[in-house]
């Protein structure tokens, strides 16, 4: 008799726990199906702003965002090979356009989300307030690869517009991207360098910065697209809308970018 009773309580005990487990499982699965995850491929120069923006978006909507960083060229190659991203935030406009052409991105999703600003940066005091003079006095000038990096192209245009490109060509060293260009100046292997104003703002280094007049280089537009492969196109669209909302654009501007809407 006794053993039967204890068996009964045991099974009831077990049942109750199983029930709680089931309901817990149900709650977890249902919430996770409500909050979807968005995968973003982001050009490295936009790392700090996007971290902030992603956190804001997560807080606002309850959806989570996964970020993958790399140079635009590398991310482009990954997307070409079926990388599972929903949105691509490129450092330029050519790669998003190329993806649309290949039908890997939605044509009407193309959106410029930020505009880069070029700056000259040096650890030692600049020996003149005249941009051209500073360049001519320098020993070695670091720029990003003009063929690959939008900031490198802008730097080259600046030097060409100042008509010093041919004179200074021998003094120029190229970083693969704007991060390496920064590193060349930071280690003082180059005495000055053309970097992104956003880098200088983000790292707040010592040294002297001179903004480059916007008239000297063509716009450094950064564009985003939604990828055709995405299974959460609606959510991706709401993120794109969030990205160009005026308050978001104001936030992007605090990271050293010109607001796209200005």
């Amino acid at each position, binding site marked *: 008799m006794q053993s039967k009773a204890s068996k009964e309580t045991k099974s009831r005990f077990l049942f109750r726990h199983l029930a709680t487990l089931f309901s817990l499982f149900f709650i977890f699965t249902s919430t996770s199906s409500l909050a979807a995850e968005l995968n973003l491929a982001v050009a490295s120069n936009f790392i700090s702003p996007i971290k902030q923006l992603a956190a804001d978006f997560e807080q606002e909507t309850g959806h989570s965002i996964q970020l993958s960083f790399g140079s635009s060229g590398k991310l482009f190659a990954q997307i070409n090979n079926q990388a599972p991203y929903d949105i691509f935030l490129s450092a330029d406009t050519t790669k998003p356009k190329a993806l649309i052409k290949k039908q890997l991105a939605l044509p009407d999703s193309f959106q410029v989300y930020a505009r880069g600003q070029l700056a000259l940066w040096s650890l030692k005091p600049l020996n003149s307030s005249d941009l051209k003079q500073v360049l001519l006095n320098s020993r070695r000038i670091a720029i990003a*690869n003009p063929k690959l990096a939008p900031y490198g192209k802008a730097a080259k245009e600046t030097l060409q517009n100042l008509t010093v490109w041919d004179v200074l060509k021998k003094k120029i060293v190229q970083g*693969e991207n704007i991060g*390496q260009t920064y590193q060349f100046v930071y280690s003082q292997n180059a005495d000055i360098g053309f970097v992104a104003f956003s880098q200088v703002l983000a790292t707040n280094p010592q040294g002297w910065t001179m903004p480059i007049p916007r008239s000297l280089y063509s716009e450094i537009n950064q564009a985003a697209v939604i990828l055709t492969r995405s299974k959460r196109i609606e959510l991706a669209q709401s993120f794109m809308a969030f990205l160009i909302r005026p308050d978001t654009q104001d936030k992007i501007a605090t990271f050293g970018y010109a607001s796209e809407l200005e």
Partner: protein
Amino acid sequence: MTLSSEDITAIWLTLKLATVVTLLLIIISTPIAWWLARTKSWLKGPINAIVAMPLVLPPTVLGFYLLIFLGPEGPAGKLLHNLGVSPLPFSFSGLVIASMFYSLPFVVQPIQNAFIAMGDKPLEAAATLRSSPWDRFFHIAIPLAKPGYISAAILGFAHTVGEFGVVLMIGGNISNETRVISIQIYDHVEALEYDQAHALSLLMIGFAFIVLAFLYSSKKQQKNKAMSDGVL
């Protein structure tokens, strides 16, 4: 798939770099390998470790510290500046120095193994015949270690040709000065010039295969020959 003139420049530069580095490394590695093969000093372990470190370190670590070390504010950079030598980063000489660090174990280790494999006996026999230490080294040790030297030269050369991370860090991507094949391929890929990237990459794969196939078949032959000669 055709190679542009920029590609050809990169190929020549790479071959030049690998040749200079291999020759210098063979000269430097000989005393290091000899000492490591013979010594009973407690320093043997640490020195062996230093030589082998590039095998396990990412090239970016080497490049990063070389950039700081050789830069105008770095110890070596300051010293060189005082000696009137122009800064090494972004120059061919800088690449040579960096590649020597990077490829060192690939040259030292085969030579060291060859010295160890020959044992003490041939040298002791020569010593009893009143051969001088230099004589023993040049006329017995070096010829006996020849297979080791061949492996060392091939591996050192091939490894330098395949270098990427270090050059990326300290090279500055200058045509005919620091833009080697691997950097050129990286540029092509990033610029979405996949055809040109393919052309150079396939060339590299062919090169790597031929070098390694040659190395492994010649090793086998050497072994057979050595056995028939009754050496091994």
